[in-house]
Protein backbone atom coordinates (compact mmCIF):
# COMPACT_ATOMS: atom_id res chain seq x y z
CA UNK A 1 0.00 0.00 0.00
CA UNK A 2 1.06 3.58 -0.56
CA UNK A 3 4.08 2.67 -2.63
CA UNK A 4 5.64 4.40 -5.62
CA UNK A 5 4.81 2.74 -8.96
CA UNK A 6 6.56 3.11 -12.30
CA UNK A 7 4.89 1.88 -15.49
CA UNK A 8 7.61 0.41 -17.72
CA UNK A 9 6.97 0.43 -21.44
CA UNK A 10 8.55 -1.96 -23.89
CA UNK A 11 9.32 -2.30 -27.56
CA UNK A 12 9.16 -6.06 -28.05
CA UNK A 13 11.37 -7.26 -25.20
CA UNK A 14 13.34 -4.09 -24.67
CA UNK A 15 12.40 -1.81 -21.80
CA UNK A 16 12.36 1.88 -22.76
CA UNK A 17 15.19 3.98 -21.41
CA UNK A 18 12.75 6.58 -20.11
CA UNK A 19 11.21 3.90 -17.88
CA UNK A 20 14.62 3.13 -16.38
CA UNK A 21 15.20 6.84 -15.80
CA UNK A 22 11.90 6.98 -13.94
CA UNK A 23 12.77 3.91 -11.87
CA UNK A 24 15.85 5.76 -10.62
CA UNK A 25 13.76 8.83 -9.81
CA UNK A 26 11.02 6.67 -8.29
CA UNK A 27 13.59 4.94 -6.05
CA UNK A 28 14.69 8.33 -4.67
CA UNK A 29 11.10 9.37 -4.02
CA UNK A 30 10.32 6.03 -2.35
CA UNK A 31 13.39 6.35 -0.10
CA UNK A 32 12.34 9.85 0.89
CA UNK A 33 8.82 8.66 1.69
CA UNK A 34 9.99 5.48 3.41
CA UNK A 35 7.99 3.23 1.07
CA UNK A 36 8.75 0.64 -1.61
CA UNK A 37 9.37 1.08 -5.32
CA UNK A 38 7.15 -1.13 -7.47
CA UNK A 39 7.25 -1.51 -11.24
CA UNK A 40 4.69 -2.83 -13.67
CA UNK A 41 5.35 -4.04 -17.21
CA UNK A 42 2.98 -5.54 -19.77
CA UNK A 43 3.81 -7.24 -23.05
CA UNK A 44 3.82 -10.45 -25.02
CA UNK A 45 6.46 -13.15 -24.40
CA UNK A 46 8.41 -10.90 -22.09
CA UNK A 47 8.75 -13.25 -19.11
CA UNK A 48 12.45 -13.91 -18.34
CA UNK A 49 13.46 -11.15 -20.76
CA UNK A 50 12.55 -7.86 -19.08
CA UNK A 51 13.24 -8.54 -15.40
CA UNK A 52 16.98 -7.86 -15.66
CA UNK A 53 16.28 -4.55 -17.35
CA UNK A 54 14.03 -3.36 -14.52
CA UNK A 55 15.04 -4.87 -11.16
CA UNK A 56 18.58 -3.39 -10.95
CA UNK A 57 17.16 0.13 -10.68
CA UNK A 58 16.11 -0.51 -7.10
CA UNK A 59 12.77 -2.23 -7.62
CA UNK A 60 11.29 -3.94 -4.56
CA UNK A 61 8.45 -5.62 -6.42
CA UNK A 62 7.88 -6.10 -10.13
CA UNK A 63 4.52 -7.05 -11.68
CA UNK A 64 5.01 -8.73 -15.06
CA UNK A 65 1.85 -9.06 -17.15
CA UNK A 66 2.65 -11.42 -20.00
CA UNK A 67 0.00 -12.40 -22.50
CA UNK A 68 -1.09 -12.33 -26.13
CA UNK A 69 -2.45 -8.98 -27.33
CA UNK A 70 -0.45 -6.86 -24.89
CA UNK A 71 2.10 -6.00 -27.56
CA UNK A 72 1.89 -3.88 -29.67
CA UNK A 73 0.41 -1.52 -27.12
CA UNK A 74 -3.26 -0.58 -27.39
CA UNK A 75 -5.04 1.66 -24.90
CA UNK A 76 -7.71 -0.51 -23.32
CA UNK A 77 -5.80 -3.65 -22.16
CA UNK A 78 -2.99 -1.65 -20.58
CA UNK A 79 -5.54 0.70 -18.96
CA UNK A 80 -7.43 -2.27 -17.49
CA UNK A 81 -4.22 -3.69 -16.04
CA UNK A 82 -3.19 -0.46 -14.33
CA UNK A 83 -6.66 0.46 -13.11
CA UNK A 84 -7.31 -2.97 -11.57
CA UNK A 85 -3.80 -3.24 -10.14
CA UNK A 86 -3.97 0.26 -8.66
CA UNK A 87 -7.33 -0.48 -7.05
CA UNK A 88 -5.67 -3.45 -5.35
CA UNK A 89 -2.36 -1.86 -4.51
CA UNK A 90 -3.42 1.75 -3.75
CA UNK A 91 -0.13 3.39 -4.78
CA UNK A 92 0.47 6.98 -3.74
CA UNK A 93 2.53 7.89 -6.79
CA UNK A 94 2.60 6.58 -10.37
CA UNK A 95 5.18 7.73 -12.90
CA UNK A 96 5.24 7.02 -16.62
CA UNK A 97 7.18 8.25 -19.63
CA UNK A 98 5.77 11.24 -21.50
CA UNK A 99 5.98 9.13 -24.64
CA UNK A 100 3.23 8.44 -27.14
CA UNK A 101 2.27 5.44 -25.02
CA UNK A 102 2.48 7.21 -21.66
CA UNK A 103 0.49 10.17 -22.94
CA UNK A 104 -2.18 7.81 -24.30
CA UNK A 105 -2.35 5.61 -21.20
CA UNK A 106 -1.84 8.12 -18.36
CA UNK A 107 -4.95 10.24 -18.96
CA UNK A 108 -7.11 7.16 -19.50
CA UNK A 109 -5.98 5.67 -16.18
CA UNK A 110 -6.28 8.98 -14.31
CA UNK A 111 -9.80 9.46 -15.65
CA UNK A 112 -10.80 5.95 -14.54
CA UNK A 113 -9.44 6.49 -11.04
CA UNK A 114 -10.38 10.21 -10.86
CA UNK A 115 -6.81 10.98 -9.93
CA UNK A 116 -4.81 14.00 -10.99
CA UNK A 117 -2.19 13.73 -13.71
CA UNK A 118 0.48 16.25 -14.62
CA UNK A 119 2.08 15.95 -18.04
CA UNK A 120 5.69 16.52 -19.02
CA UNK A 121 7.12 17.27 -15.58
CA UNK A 122 10.67 18.58 -15.51
CA UNK A 123 11.18 18.12 -11.76
CA UNK A 124 9.58 15.90 -9.12
CA UNK A 125 10.04 16.57 -5.42
CA UNK A 126 8.39 15.70 -2.13
CA UNK A 127 7.21 18.54 0.07
CA UNK A 128 4.50 19.86 2.37
CA UNK A 129 1.35 21.63 1.23
CA UNK A 130 -1.20 23.78 3.01
CA UNK A 131 -4.56 24.13 1.34
CA UNK A 132 -5.53 27.74 1.90
CA UNK A 133 -9.22 27.03 1.30
CA UNK A 134 -9.78 24.02 3.54
CA UNK A 135 -6.97 24.84 5.97
CA UNK A 136 -5.76 21.28 5.64
CA UNK A 137 -2.08 20.44 5.95
CA UNK A 138 -0.34 17.72 3.96
CA UNK A 139 3.12 16.51 4.97
CA UNK A 140 4.47 14.81 1.92
CA UNK A 141 2.93 15.50 -1.45
CA UNK A 142 4.52 15.04 -4.83
CA UNK A 143 5.46 18.41 -6.29
CA UNK A 144 4.93 18.07 -10.02
CA UNK A 145 6.90 20.89 -11.54
CA UNK A 146 6.55 21.86 -15.18
CA UNK A 147 6.74 24.85 -17.47
CA UNK A 148 3.25 26.00 -18.43
CA UNK A 149 1.58 28.48 -20.67
CA UNK A 150 3.85 27.90 -23.63
CA UNK A 151 6.86 27.86 -21.34
CA UNK A 152 6.49 31.36 -19.99
CA UNK A 153 5.98 30.28 -16.41
CA UNK A 154 6.84 27.32 -14.23
CA UNK A 155 4.00 25.80 -12.24
CA UNK A 156 4.16 23.49 -9.23
CA UNK A 157 1.14 21.19 -9.25
CA UNK A 158 -0.05 19.01 -6.37
CA UNK A 159 -2.85 16.45 -6.03
CA UNK A 160 -3.87 16.76 -2.37
CA UNK A 161 -6.76 14.30 -2.10
CA UNK A 162 -6.63 11.88 -5.01
CA UNK A 163 -4.38 8.86 -5.42
CA UNK A 164 -2.25 7.93 -7.12
CA UNK A 165 -0.53 11.23 -7.80
CA UNK A 166 0.33 10.70 -11.45
CA UNK A 167 3.00 12.36 -13.54
CA UNK A 168 4.57 11.84 -16.93
CA UNK A 169 8.19 12.78 -17.63
CA UNK A 170 9.96 12.98 -20.98
CA UNK A 171 12.88 10.86 -21.96
CA UNK A 172 16.23 12.32 -20.88
CA UNK A 173 14.87 14.60 -18.18
CA UNK A 174 15.88 12.22 -15.38
CA UNK A 175 19.15 10.27 -15.33
CA UNK A 176 19.14 6.52 -14.88
CA UNK A 177 21.54 4.80 -12.52
CA UNK A 178 21.80 1.22 -11.23
CA UNK A 179 20.73 1.30 -7.57
CA UNK A 180 23.58 0.85 -5.11
CA UNK A 181 21.37 0.13 -2.10
CA UNK A 182 19.46 -3.06 -1.46
CA UNK A 183 15.99 -3.71 -2.81
CA UNK A 184 13.74 -6.75 -2.42
CA UNK A 185 13.65 -7.69 -6.12
CA UNK A 186 10.43 -9.71 -5.82
CA UNK A 187 8.84 -10.58 -9.17
CA UNK A 188 5.24 -11.72 -9.65
CA UNK A 189 3.40 -12.86 -12.76
CA UNK A 190 -0.33 -12.13 -12.31
CA UNK A 191 -2.95 -13.86 -14.45
CA UNK A 192 -3.70 -11.35 -17.22
CA UNK A 193 -7.23 -12.67 -17.75
CA UNK A 194 -8.12 -11.57 -14.22
CA UNK A 195 -7.23 -7.99 -15.16
CA UNK A 196 -8.23 -7.58 -18.80
CA UNK A 197 -11.59 -8.51 -20.28
CA UNK A 198 -11.79 -10.00 -23.78
CA UNK A 199 -13.64 -6.93 -25.05
CA UNK A 200 -10.59 -4.78 -24.31
CA UNK A 201 -8.74 -6.15 -27.33
CA UNK A 202 -11.01 -4.53 -29.95
CA UNK A 203 -8.50 -2.10 -31.42
CA UNK A 204 -6.31 -3.96 -33.90
CA UNK A 205 -2.86 -2.89 -35.01
CA UNK A 206 -2.84 -3.70 -38.73
CA UNK A 207 0.61 -2.49 -39.63
CA UNK A 208 3.56 -1.08 -37.75
CA UNK A 209 6.90 0.45 -38.71
CA UNK A 210 9.43 1.48 -36.11
CA UNK A 211 12.79 2.73 -37.19
CA UNK A 212 15.87 3.13 -35.06
CA UNK A 213 16.41 6.80 -34.23
CA UNK A 214 18.01 8.68 -37.10
CA UNK A 215 20.20 10.69 -34.78
CA UNK A 216 21.49 10.69 -31.25
CA UNK A 217 20.56 14.19 -30.16
CA UNK A 218 19.79 13.07 -26.62
CA UNK A 219 23.27 11.66 -26.08
CA UNK A 220 25.27 14.13 -28.18
CA UNK A 221 28.21 15.86 -26.51
CA UNK A 222 27.93 18.88 -28.78
CA UNK A 223 24.60 20.31 -29.90
CA UNK A 224 24.20 23.04 -32.50
CA UNK A 225 20.65 24.30 -32.12
CA UNK A 226 18.74 26.71 -34.30
CA UNK A 227 15.77 28.92 -33.60
CA UNK A 228 13.61 31.37 -35.44
CA UNK A 229 16.67 33.58 -36.01
CA UNK A 230 18.09 30.98 -38.41
CA UNK A 231 15.54 32.35 -40.84
CA UNK A 232 15.01 29.45 -43.24
CA UNK A 233 15.38 25.76 -44.01
CA UNK A 234 18.52 26.62 -45.97
CA UNK A 235 19.88 28.38 -42.90
CA UNK A 236 19.73 25.05 -41.12
CA UNK A 237 22.05 23.50 -43.74
CA UNK A 238 24.78 25.68 -42.28
CA UNK A 239 24.00 24.39 -38.79
CA UNK A 240 24.20 20.80 -40.03
CA UNK A 241 27.59 21.59 -41.53
CA UNK A 242 28.88 23.03 -38.26
CA UNK A 243 27.51 20.05 -36.34
CA UNK A 244 29.28 17.65 -38.74
CA UNK A 245 32.58 19.46 -38.27
CA UNK A 246 32.24 19.35 -34.49
CA UNK A 247 30.92 15.73 -34.46
CA UNK A 248 27.75 16.99 -32.86
CA UNK A 249 24.03 16.92 -33.56
CA UNK A 250 21.55 19.55 -34.67
CA UNK A 251 18.74 20.59 -32.36
CA UNK A 252 16.04 23.20 -32.77
CA UNK A 253 13.65 25.39 -30.87
CA UNK A 254 9.92 24.93 -31.16
CA UNK A 255 9.66 28.06 -33.32
CA UNK A 256 12.01 26.56 -35.92
CA UNK A 257 10.13 23.25 -35.87
CA UNK A 258 6.76 25.01 -36.18
CA UNK A 259 8.16 26.96 -39.14
CA UNK A 260 8.87 23.61 -40.82
CA UNK A 261 12.61 24.18 -41.18
CA UNK A 262 13.64 21.03 -39.34
CA UNK A 263 12.07 17.70 -38.26
CA UNK A 264 10.16 17.79 -34.99
CA UNK A 265 12.23 14.96 -33.51
CA UNK A 266 15.05 17.49 -33.21
CA UNK A 267 13.11 19.83 -30.95
CA UNK A 268 14.92 20.61 -27.72
CA UNK A 269 12.83 21.62 -24.73
CA UNK A 270 10.11 20.59 -22.37
CA UNK A 271 7.95 19.17 -25.12
CA UNK A 272 10.90 17.84 -27.07
CA UNK A 273 14.22 16.26 -26.21
CA UNK A 274 16.20 17.13 -23.08
CA UNK A 275 19.92 17.28 -23.77
CA UNK A 276 22.96 17.31 -21.50
CA UNK A 277 25.83 18.14 -23.89
CA UNK A 278 29.30 19.49 -23.10
CA UNK A 279 28.68 22.37 -25.47
CA UNK A 280 25.38 23.88 -26.62
CA UNK A 281 25.53 26.42 -29.41
CA UNK A 282 22.22 28.30 -29.56
CA UNK A 283 21.85 29.97 -32.94
CA UNK A 284 19.12 32.59 -33.16
CA UNK A 285 17.22 31.13 -30.18
CA UNK A 286 15.55 33.64 -27.89
CA UNK A 287 15.28 31.17 -25.02
CA UNK A 288 11.76 30.62 -23.77
CA UNK A 289 11.63 28.69 -20.49
CA UNK A 290 10.18 25.73 -22.33
CA UNK A 291 13.36 25.58 -24.41
CA UNK A 292 15.77 26.34 -21.57
CA UNK A 293 14.18 23.52 -19.54
CA UNK A 294 15.60 21.13 -22.13
CA UNK A 295 19.19 22.36 -22.27
CA UNK A 296 20.09 24.27 -19.11
CA UNK A 297 22.39 21.49 -17.88
CA UNK A 298 24.73 21.93 -20.83
CA UNK A 299 28.36 22.40 -19.77
CA UNK A 300 29.07 25.45 -21.88
CA UNK A 301 26.40 27.51 -23.59
CA UNK A 302 27.25 29.73 -26.52
CA UNK A 303 24.50 32.04 -27.74
CA UNK A 304 24.55 33.66 -31.14
CA UNK A 305 21.85 36.30 -31.39
CA UNK A 306 21.37 39.70 -32.96
CA UNK A 307 19.45 40.74 -29.85
CA UNK A 308 21.90 41.38 -26.99
CA UNK A 309 18.99 41.11 -24.54
CA UNK A 310 17.73 37.69 -25.68
CA UNK A 311 16.69 35.76 -22.53
CA UNK A 312 19.00 32.86 -23.36
CA UNK A 313 22.00 35.17 -23.03
CA UNK A 314 21.46 35.28 -19.29
CA UNK A 315 22.43 31.63 -18.95
CA UNK A 316 25.09 31.65 -21.66
CA UNK A 317 28.81 31.47 -21.03
CA UNK A 318 29.59 33.16 -24.31
CA UNK A 319 27.30 35.67 -25.97
CA UNK A 320 28.07 36.48 -29.57
CA UNK A 321 26.09 39.47 -30.73
CA UNK A 322 25.62 38.92 -34.42
CA UNK A 323 23.51 37.17 -37.00
CA UNK A 324 23.56 33.41 -37.47
CA UNK A 325 24.43 33.66 -41.13
CA UNK A 326 27.41 35.85 -40.36
CA UNK A 327 28.78 34.01 -37.33
CA UNK A 328 28.24 30.31 -38.13
CA UNK A 329 30.38 30.28 -41.32
CA UNK A 330 33.15 31.94 -39.33
CA UNK A 331 32.91 29.28 -36.63
CA UNK A 332 33.24 26.63 -39.34
CA UNK A 333 36.13 28.42 -41.00
CA UNK A 334 38.20 29.01 -37.88
CA UNK A 335 37.49 25.56 -36.53
CA UNK A 336 38.78 24.01 -39.75
CA UNK A 337 41.86 26.26 -39.68
CA UNK A 338 42.79 25.65 -36.06
CA UNK A 339 41.69 22.12 -35.28
CA UNK A 340 44.43 20.33 -37.19
Amino acid at each position, binding site marked *: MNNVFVYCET*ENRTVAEVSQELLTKGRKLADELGVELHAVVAGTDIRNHVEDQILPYGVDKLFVFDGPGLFPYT*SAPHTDILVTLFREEQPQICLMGAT*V*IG*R*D*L*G*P*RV*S*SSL*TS*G*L*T*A*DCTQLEIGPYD*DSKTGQHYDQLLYQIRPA*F*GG*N*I*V*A*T*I*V*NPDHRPQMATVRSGVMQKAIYEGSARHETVYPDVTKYVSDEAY*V*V*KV*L*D*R*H*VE*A*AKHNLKGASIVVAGGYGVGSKEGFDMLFQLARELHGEVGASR*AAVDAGWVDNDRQVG*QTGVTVHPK*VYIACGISGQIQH*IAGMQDA*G*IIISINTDP*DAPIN*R*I*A*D*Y*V*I*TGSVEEVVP*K*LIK*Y*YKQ*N*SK
Partner: protein
Amino acid sequence: MSLNIVVLAKQVPDTRNVGKDAMKEDGTINRAALPAIFNPEDLNALEQALRLKEQHPGSTVGILTMGPPRAGEIIRQGLYRGADTGWLLTDRLFAGADTLATSYALAMAIKKIGHVDIVIGGRQAIDGDTAQVGPQVAQKLGLNQVTYAEEILKIENGRATIRRHIDGGVETVEAPLPVVVTVNGSAAPCRPCNAKLVMQYKRATCPMERTGDEPWSALYDQRPYLTLNQWSVADVEADPEQCGLSGSPTKVKSIQNIVFQAKESRTLTGSDADIEELVTELLNEKIIG
Protein backbone atom coordinates in the same frame (compact mmCIF):
# COMPACT_ATOMS: atom_id res chain seq x y z
CA MET B 1 -23.18 5.41 -43.96
CA SER B 2 -23.62 8.95 -42.71
CA LEU B 3 -21.66 9.96 -39.64
CA ASN B 4 -22.43 12.19 -36.72
CA ILE B 5 -19.08 13.87 -36.08
CA VAL B 6 -18.18 16.11 -33.13
CA VAL B 7 -14.98 18.16 -33.24
CA LEU B 8 -13.47 19.23 -29.90
CA ALA B 9 -11.91 22.66 -30.27
CA LYS B 10 -10.42 25.15 -27.83
CA GLN B 11 -9.77 28.84 -27.96
CA VAL B 12 -6.24 29.39 -26.67
CA PRO B 13 -3.88 32.30 -26.17
CA ASP B 14 -1.24 32.23 -28.88
CA THR B 15 1.68 31.14 -26.72
CA ARG B 16 3.91 30.13 -29.60
CA ASN B 17 5.60 33.37 -30.50
CA VAL B 18 5.30 35.42 -27.37
CA GLY B 19 7.40 38.51 -27.14
CA LYS B 20 9.00 40.05 -24.10
CA ASP B 21 5.72 41.77 -23.23
CA ALA B 22 4.03 38.42 -22.53
CA MET B 23 4.71 38.72 -18.83
CA LYS B 24 3.80 41.72 -16.73
CA GLU B 25 6.24 43.22 -14.25
CA ASP B 26 4.47 41.46 -11.37
CA GLY B 27 5.05 38.07 -12.98
CA THR B 28 1.49 37.47 -14.17
CA ILE B 29 0.53 36.78 -17.74
CA ASN B 30 -0.27 39.74 -19.91
CA ARG B 31 -3.26 38.21 -21.70
CA ALA B 32 -3.80 41.35 -23.72
CA ALA B 33 -0.46 40.74 -25.45
CA LEU B 34 -1.55 37.28 -26.57
CA PRO B 35 -4.23 37.01 -29.24
CA ALA B 36 -6.88 34.30 -28.77
CA ILE B 37 -6.72 31.75 -31.57
CA PHE B 38 -8.20 28.42 -32.67
CA ASN B 39 -5.92 25.81 -31.11
CA PRO B 40 -3.70 24.75 -34.04
CA GLU B 41 -4.07 20.97 -33.74
CA ASP B 42 -7.85 21.34 -33.40
CA LEU B 43 -7.76 22.79 -36.91
CA ASN B 44 -6.02 19.63 -38.11
CA ALA B 45 -8.81 17.69 -36.39
CA LEU B 46 -11.49 19.80 -38.11
CA GLU B 47 -9.93 19.05 -41.50
CA GLN B 48 -10.16 15.30 -40.86
CA ALA B 49 -13.81 15.75 -39.86
CA LEU B 50 -14.65 17.78 -42.98
CA ARG B 51 -13.00 15.14 -45.17
CA LEU B 52 -15.11 12.43 -43.57
CA LYS B 53 -18.20 14.53 -44.19
CA GLU B 54 -17.32 14.76 -47.87
CA GLN B 55 -16.67 11.02 -48.13
CA HIS B 56 -19.88 10.10 -46.31
CA PRO B 57 -22.82 12.08 -47.70
CA GLY B 58 -25.39 13.04 -45.13
CA SER B 59 -22.80 13.36 -42.35
CA THR B 60 -22.75 16.33 -40.01
CA VAL B 61 -19.87 18.08 -38.28
CA GLY B 62 -20.45 19.98 -35.04
CA ILE B 63 -17.90 22.03 -33.10
CA LEU B 64 -17.91 21.54 -29.33
CA THR B 65 -15.99 24.09 -27.30
CA MET B 66 -15.84 25.26 -23.70
CA GLY B 67 -14.86 28.73 -22.62
CA PRO B 68 -16.04 32.26 -21.95
CA PRO B 69 -18.71 33.72 -24.26
CA ARG B 70 -16.09 35.07 -26.69
CA ALA B 71 -15.12 31.46 -27.47
CA GLY B 72 -18.20 31.53 -29.73
CA GLU B 73 -15.62 32.68 -32.27
CA ILE B 74 -14.32 29.09 -32.41
CA ILE B 75 -17.74 27.87 -33.56
CA ARG B 76 -17.91 30.60 -36.21
CA GLN B 77 -14.42 29.68 -37.43
CA GLY B 78 -15.67 26.11 -37.78
CA LEU B 79 -18.83 27.17 -39.62
CA TYR B 80 -16.76 29.30 -42.02
CA ARG B 81 -14.83 26.16 -42.98
CA GLY B 82 -17.80 23.88 -43.48
CA ALA B 83 -19.04 22.69 -40.08
CA ASP B 84 -22.81 22.39 -39.73
CA THR B 85 -23.34 23.41 -36.14
CA GLY B 86 -21.67 24.03 -32.81
CA TRP B 87 -22.12 24.12 -29.04
CA LEU B 88 -20.49 26.48 -26.59
CA LEU B 89 -20.23 25.25 -23.01
CA THR B 90 -20.12 28.39 -20.95
CA ASP B 91 -20.87 28.81 -17.28
CA ARG B 92 -18.94 30.26 -14.34
CA LEU B 93 -19.14 26.82 -12.76
CA PHE B 94 -16.91 25.44 -15.55
CA ALA B 95 -14.14 27.94 -14.69
CA GLY B 96 -10.83 26.77 -13.27
CA ALA B 97 -11.18 23.26 -14.66
CA ASP B 98 -8.14 21.03 -15.01
CA THR B 99 -8.10 18.36 -17.71
CA LEU B 100 -10.25 15.93 -15.73
CA ALA B 101 -13.02 18.45 -15.01
CA THR B 102 -12.83 19.65 -18.61
CA SER B 103 -13.21 16.14 -19.97
CA TYR B 104 -16.16 15.52 -17.64
CA ALA B 105 -17.96 18.61 -18.99
CA LEU B 106 -17.20 17.69 -22.61
CA ALA B 107 -18.32 14.10 -22.06
CA MET B 108 -21.62 15.28 -20.56
CA ALA B 109 -22.17 17.55 -23.57
CA ILE B 110 -21.42 14.71 -25.99
CA LYS B 111 -23.96 12.53 -24.16
CA LYS B 112 -26.51 15.29 -24.58
CA ILE B 113 -25.71 15.67 -28.29
CA GLY B 114 -26.33 11.93 -28.52
CA HIS B 115 -25.63 9.23 -31.12
CA VAL B 116 -22.13 10.49 -31.93
CA ASP B 117 -20.11 8.19 -34.22
CA ILE B 118 -16.75 9.86 -33.98
CA VAL B 119 -15.25 12.55 -31.75
CA ILE B 120 -12.18 14.24 -33.21
CA GLY B 121 -9.93 16.70 -31.41
CA GLY B 122 -6.41 18.02 -31.62
CA ARG B 123 -3.77 15.98 -29.82
CA GLN B 124 -3.14 18.82 -27.39
CA ALA B 125 -3.70 22.53 -26.83
CA ILE B 126 -0.78 24.92 -26.95
CA ASP B 127 -1.61 26.62 -23.64
CA GLY B 128 -1.21 23.41 -21.64
CA ASP B 129 0.46 20.83 -23.91
CA THR B 130 -1.00 18.03 -21.79
CA ALA B 131 -2.70 15.84 -24.46
CA GLN B 132 -4.99 14.54 -21.71
CA VAL B 133 -8.47 15.73 -22.59
CA GLY B 134 -8.99 13.42 -25.60
CA PRO B 135 -8.24 10.15 -23.77
CA GLN B 136 -10.13 11.33 -20.68
CA VAL B 137 -13.24 12.13 -22.73
CA ALA B 138 -12.97 8.67 -24.31
CA GLN B 139 -12.71 7.00 -20.91
CA LYS B 140 -15.66 8.95 -19.50
CA LEU B 141 -17.81 7.90 -22.47
CA GLY B 142 -16.50 4.34 -22.40
CA LEU B 143 -15.26 4.69 -25.97
CA ASN B 144 -12.13 3.51 -27.73
CA GLN B 145 -9.44 6.04 -28.43
CA VAL B 146 -6.81 6.53 -31.10
CA THR B 147 -4.33 9.28 -30.25
CA TYR B 148 -1.58 10.92 -32.34
CA ALA B 149 -3.53 10.33 -35.57
CA GLU B 150 -1.99 11.44 -38.85
CA GLU B 151 -4.92 10.53 -41.07
CA ILE B 152 -8.27 8.80 -40.85
CA LEU B 153 -7.85 6.53 -43.86
CA LYS B 154 -11.38 5.18 -44.08
CA ILE B 155 -14.51 4.30 -42.21
CA GLU B 156 -16.18 1.11 -43.36
CA ASN B 157 -18.58 -1.37 -41.76
CA GLY B 158 -18.53 0.53 -38.52
CA ARG B 159 -14.77 0.47 -38.20
CA ALA B 160 -12.28 3.30 -38.61
CA THR B 161 -8.84 2.69 -40.09
CA ILE B 162 -6.40 5.28 -38.85
CA ARG B 163 -2.72 5.92 -39.45
CA ARG B 164 -1.05 7.22 -36.31
CA HIS B 165 2.31 8.40 -35.15
CA ILE B 166 4.16 6.30 -32.55
CA ASP B 167 7.61 6.81 -30.98
CA GLY B 168 10.09 6.20 -33.77
CA GLY B 169 7.57 5.31 -36.45
CA VAL B 170 4.00 4.94 -37.62
CA GLU B 171 1.31 2.32 -37.26
CA THR B 172 -2.10 1.70 -38.77
CA VAL B 173 -4.89 0.68 -36.43
CA GLU B 174 -8.49 -0.34 -36.84
CA ALA B 175 -11.00 0.66 -34.18
CA PRO B 176 -14.75 0.10 -33.97
CA LEU B 177 -17.05 3.12 -33.84
CA PRO B 178 -17.87 5.11 -31.84
CA VAL B 179 -14.30 6.24 -31.29
CA VAL B 180 -12.40 9.29 -30.01
CA VAL B 181 -9.52 10.35 -32.26
CA THR B 182 -6.87 12.96 -31.46
CA VAL B 183 -4.97 14.44 -34.39
CA ASN B 184 -1.34 15.51 -34.65
CA GLY B 185 -0.15 18.87 -35.93
CA SER B 186 1.69 17.04 -38.72
CA ALA B 187 -1.63 15.90 -40.23
CA ALA B 188 -3.10 17.72 -43.22
CA PRO B 189 -3.61 21.45 -42.56
CA CYS B 190 -7.15 22.79 -42.38
CA ARG B 191 -8.80 24.33 -45.40
CA PRO B 192 -9.24 28.11 -45.36
CA CYS B 193 -12.51 29.87 -44.61
CA ASN B 194 -15.05 29.84 -47.41
CA ALA B 195 -16.08 33.40 -48.37
CA LYS B 196 -19.75 32.47 -48.85
CA LEU B 197 -19.90 30.80 -45.47
CA VAL B 198 -18.22 33.78 -43.85
CA MET B 199 -20.95 36.03 -45.31
CA GLN B 200 -23.61 33.60 -44.12
CA TYR B 201 -22.37 33.14 -40.55
CA LYS B 202 -20.46 36.30 -39.63
CA ARG B 203 -23.36 37.48 -37.46
CA ALA B 204 -23.84 34.07 -35.84
CA THR B 205 -23.43 34.44 -32.10
CA CYS B 206 -24.24 32.80 -28.81
CA PRO B 207 -26.81 34.73 -26.76
CA MET B 208 -24.18 35.71 -24.18
CA GLU B 209 -21.98 37.30 -26.84
CA ARG B 210 -24.72 39.81 -27.66
CA THR B 211 -25.20 43.25 -26.23
CA GLY B 212 -28.81 43.43 -27.46
CA ASP B 213 -28.36 46.68 -29.37
CA GLU B 214 -26.65 45.32 -32.48
CA PRO B 215 -27.99 47.13 -35.57
CA TRP B 216 -28.68 43.73 -37.11
CA SER B 217 -30.43 42.21 -34.09
CA ALA B 218 -33.69 41.86 -36.02
CA LEU B 219 -31.91 39.21 -38.11
CA TYR B 220 -31.76 36.85 -35.13
CA ASP B 221 -35.54 36.37 -35.22
CA GLN B 222 -35.60 35.82 -38.98
CA ARG B 223 -32.61 33.48 -39.26
CA PRO B 224 -32.45 30.88 -36.50
CA TYR B 225 -29.07 29.59 -37.75
CA LEU B 226 -27.51 32.82 -36.51
CA THR B 227 -28.13 31.78 -32.90
CA LEU B 228 -25.47 29.35 -31.76
CA ASN B 229 -26.11 26.74 -29.08
CA GLN B 230 -24.99 27.83 -25.66
CA TRP B 231 -25.07 25.31 -22.83
CA SER B 232 -24.65 25.74 -19.09
CA VAL B 233 -23.79 23.13 -16.45
CA ALA B 234 -27.53 22.58 -15.94
CA ASP B 235 -28.18 22.27 -19.69
CA VAL B 236 -25.85 19.28 -19.96
CA GLU B 237 -27.13 17.85 -16.66
CA ALA B 238 -23.66 17.90 -15.16
CA ASP B 239 -22.89 17.61 -11.47
CA PRO B 240 -21.50 21.03 -10.46
CA GLU B 241 -19.19 19.32 -7.95
CA GLN B 242 -17.39 17.56 -10.81
CA CYS B 243 -17.02 20.76 -12.85
CA GLY B 244 -14.51 23.57 -12.77
CA LEU B 245 -12.21 24.10 -9.82
CA SER B 246 -14.12 21.79 -7.46
CA GLY B 247 -13.95 18.92 -9.96
CA SER B 248 -10.21 19.28 -10.46
CA PRO B 249 -7.95 16.90 -8.50
CA THR B 250 -4.84 18.85 -9.44
CA LYS B 251 -4.18 22.13 -7.68
CA VAL B 252 -1.65 24.73 -8.65
CA LYS B 253 0.56 25.16 -5.60
CA SER B 254 2.59 28.00 -7.00
CA ILE B 255 3.49 29.70 -10.21
CA GLN B 256 6.83 31.24 -10.77
CA ASN B 257 8.19 33.48 -13.38
CA ILE B 258 11.39 31.51 -13.38
CA VAL B 259 14.63 33.39 -13.45
CA PHE B 260 17.44 31.09 -14.37
CA GLN B 261 20.67 31.53 -12.52
CA ALA B 262 22.43 34.15 -14.57
CA LYS B 263 25.97 33.23 -15.49
CA GLU B 264 28.86 35.54 -15.87
CA SER B 265 29.05 35.59 -19.60
CA ARG B 266 31.61 36.91 -21.98
CA THR B 267 30.25 39.08 -24.73
CA LEU B 268 31.80 38.89 -28.16
CA THR B 269 31.08 40.51 -31.47
CA GLY B 270 30.70 38.60 -34.71
CA SER B 271 34.05 39.88 -35.96
CA ASP B 272 36.61 37.49 -37.39
CA ALA B 273 39.05 38.28 -34.60
CA ASP B 274 36.52 37.53 -31.84
CA ILE B 275 35.32 34.30 -33.41
CA GLU B 276 38.83 33.02 -34.07
CA GLU B 277 39.83 33.78 -30.50
CA LEU B 278 36.77 31.92 -29.18
CA VAL B 279 37.39 28.85 -31.35
CA THR B 280 41.07 28.74 -30.37
CA GLU B 281 40.20 29.03 -26.71
CA LEU B 282 37.64 26.20 -26.89
CA LEU B 283 40.16 24.05 -28.75
CA ASN B 284 42.99 24.78 -26.32
CA GLU B 285 40.81 23.87 -23.37
CA LYS B 286 39.75 20.70 -25.20
CA ILE B 287 36.10 21.71 -24.96
CA ILE B 288 35.77 21.03 -28.67
CA GLY B 289 38.09 19.25 -31.04
